[in-house]
């Protein structure tokens, strides 16, 4: 059913990202099993599911960090990437962020972004400066550009992680729980940032536990449980699905209804 | 052929004792003790000093017991001075490599200052020879071949049956969970270091009975133990023991058939071969 859904959507234009029957096991545990979905340009696909459902592992499989899938295919812009080194995947225009706020703590804010421009897009000289300036400006980091990255706040570090991703003008941005640990106003700011990136032509793949954000901006939502894809569809449909309620939303379902409806 | 196997078994047994100690510390603390070879040497000297007429002259029995008791204390001192201050800090791995190297320089030169550089000999625990099949074996060699597995099995029982032994493994696998069980991590680290030092001491005393003892007698066993732990996989006791015997055998056979000078080359090639196939050693886990 869900497979059909994604196929139907791919008939129009060729998908930007196509994940086909991807699986990965650690010993006896199937962390991700037979997951398929597709994403077109400027799509926003939200991924939800309980902790340990395999969401981050799925991200790791798509970006090749730090392991490859056992089975299945991942295609990005027409190129197979399921056995490709992670740095090459980034150069193809697929940028991700990490669940834990990450930065190169010993480098300055500017150097953090500049590295992305240098190694991700092969920029140098004036072109690099311009790209870095624009990315810093976009994420409101220009004032802190000479500070060490370790001096930033939680949200500052998250913005820096985004700046070092968008500096290369990626086609797809994969965000792993970007809103965790943020205050309400920061979440609101993040939401408008993400929508802005989409308007600039990036597709977004978003893992998020803060459901208003996830259901609010996703065009479609995929729910995972036990490494498998439970359902994929428009937010309103997903929120009402009994399996989703059982596996994930539980008592939250009524609120999800309210939000989706 | 019998002689080659005996020599391989003896080396394998000694390497297993040395490498098991290294592996144990790596498993629980995530640091590498470069002073392990010098601990081995110190154990041999302690046994010699207590037992020999040139020292206290108390006889081999008291020498061995005294030396092993001394090793417990020495393990504690090494832990407290050279390891503990860096645990949990950034780059503890590198800092502890350096501090334990510094510790080994200190101990080695201290021994050299106290006892001089001349070779000494410890009495063999058992003397004479034994004939098995067509091969004549020095009794001390036979002792090593039998004693090492006995000790390793004792250690295995300790780690799976004893309250402290179980706690050592728990700390190695999940420090937070161990603490929440009420295990005092600090005490366990000390126990780990002491057990490891005792193993080094036993190896030193056995080695001292086979060859002369000297301030640099720990260097070669330590270098071999490096190869063993990489080969077998750090932190995995079965892997370490398997690796030790494998290296001992490879060494014995290649010394005989290819030549003693080429043996390190053969070992290195084998090592690289293993690592190309399995980057974490035969049975090791990713770090």
């Amino acid at each position, binding site marked *: 059913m869900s497979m059909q859904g994604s196929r139907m959507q791919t008939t129009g234009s060729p998908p930007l990202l196509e994940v086909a029957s991807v699986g990965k096991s650690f010993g006896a545990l199937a962390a991700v099993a037979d997951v398929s979905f597709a994403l077109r340009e400027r799509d926003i696909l939200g991924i939800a599911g309980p*902790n340990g459902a395999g969401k981050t592992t799925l991200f790791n499989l798509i970006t090749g960090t730090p392991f490859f899938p056992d089975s299945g295919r991942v295609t990005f812009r027409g190129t197979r990437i399921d056995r490709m080194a992670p740095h090459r995947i980034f150069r193809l225009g697929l940028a991700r962020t990490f669940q834990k706020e990450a930065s190169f703590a010993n480098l300055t804010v500017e150097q953090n972004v500049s590295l992305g421009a240098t190694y991700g897009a092969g920029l140098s000289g004036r072109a690099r400066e311009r790209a870095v300036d624009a990315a810093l400006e976009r994420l409101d980091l220009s004032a802190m550009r000479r500070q060490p990255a370790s001096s930033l706040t939680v949200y500052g570090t998250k913005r820096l992680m985004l700046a070092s991703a968008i500096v290369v003008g990626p086609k797809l941005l994969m965000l792993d729980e970007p809103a965790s640990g943020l205050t309400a106003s920061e979440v609101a700011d993040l939401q408008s940032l993400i929508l802005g990136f989409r308007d600039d032509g990036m597709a977004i793949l978003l893992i998020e*536990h803060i459901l208003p954000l996830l259901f609010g901006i996703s065009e479609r939502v995929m729910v995972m449980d036990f490494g498998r894809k439970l359902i994929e569809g428009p937010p309103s449909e997903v929120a009402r699905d009994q399996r989703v309620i059982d*596996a994930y939303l539980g*008592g939250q379902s009524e*609120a999800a209804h309210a*939000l989706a409806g | 052929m019998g002689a080659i196997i005996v020599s391989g078994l003896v080396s394998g047994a000694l390497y297993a004792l040395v490498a098991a100690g290294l592996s144990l510390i790596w498993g629980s603390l995530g640091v590498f003790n470069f002073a392990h070879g010098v601990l081995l040497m110190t154990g041999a000297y302690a046994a010699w000093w207590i037992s020999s007429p040139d020292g206290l002259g108390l006889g081999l029995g008291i020498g061995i017991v005294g030396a092993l008791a001394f090793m417990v204390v020495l393990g504690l001192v090494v832990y407290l001075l050279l390891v503990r201050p860096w645990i949990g800090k950034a780059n503890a791995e590198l800092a502890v490599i350096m501090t334990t190297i510094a510790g080994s320089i200190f101990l080695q030169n201290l021994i050299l200052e106290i006892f001089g550089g001349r070779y000494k000999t410890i009495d063999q625990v058992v003397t004479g020879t034994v004939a098995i099949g067509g091969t004549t074996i020095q009794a001390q060699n036979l002792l090593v071949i039998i004693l090492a597995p006995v000790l390793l099995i004792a250690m295995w029982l300790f780690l799976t049956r004893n309250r402290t032994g179980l706690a050592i493994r728990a700390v190695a696998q*999940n420090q937070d969970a161990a603490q*929440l069980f009420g295990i*005092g991590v600090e005490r366990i680290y000390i126990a780990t270091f002491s057990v490891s030092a005792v193993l080094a001491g036993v190896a030193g005393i056995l080695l001292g009975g086979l060859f002369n003892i000297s301030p640099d007698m720990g260097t070669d066993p330590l270098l071999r133990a490096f190869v063993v732990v990489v080969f077998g996989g750090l932190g995995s006791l079965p892997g370490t023991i398997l690796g030790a015997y494998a290296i001992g055998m490879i060494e014995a056979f290649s010394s005989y058939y290819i030549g003693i000078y080429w043996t390190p080359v053969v070992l290195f090639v084998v090592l690289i071969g293993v690592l190309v196939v399995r980057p974490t050693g035969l049975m090791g886990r990713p770090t």
Partner: protein
Amino acid sequence: MRLQVEAISAGYGRVRVLHEISIAVDNQRVGLFGPNGHGKTTLLRTISGLIRPTAGRVIFDGKDITGRSPQSIVGEGLVHVPQGSTLLPRMTVLEALTLGAYSRRAWPRRRSTMEQVFSLFPRLAERRAQRCNTLSGGERQMAAIGAGLMGCPKLLMLDEPTLGLAPKLRAELAQAIHAIAATGVGLLVIDQDIDMLLGLCDRLYLIEQGRVALDVVDRSAIQHQDVLKRYFGSAA
């Protein structure tokens, strides 16, 4: 009052997670809920001594245990079962349970306690020789709770016991937790499953941004919808 947390502040490095938070656990079952990343787990870690608070006090059974080692806190009978799938991946169930009784108070009683744990979780008895990393998700959770019980707790703190479990297993585990509560052990439980918490607890705290955002003492007064609105309202 069995456990009293008074105006605790704590965090990791420069990041402050808890802001002068206070909660109380009497002879009752208390639940903590709220969005991820807002300090629930940090609160338990601070109570059990894994994190040293920067301010405030923790009082257990009338004793001030602030800043004491996890070891001595377990010794007092305050046991924390952490979140996460596998406690001791390469140990057998039997070894892990035995270690649960490591504290001096619990060690002499370990055999009889283990009988009780096995009667509560018969599945663990069947799996006793198996390594923890070969257990299923539900069995791992049972082993973790069982190891916690081996410490003979006066108060048991459970961090998301039903995490990642299928509905049927979740119900089964909730039943076991009820059975534990019936023996007189105090409970402080974090869970995302509000229905389960509502069925189990006498008192609920909603934790947001390291503070108590809502303290529900009278369970009958809880307006389900209100709580949920509050829960989701944080970001909406």
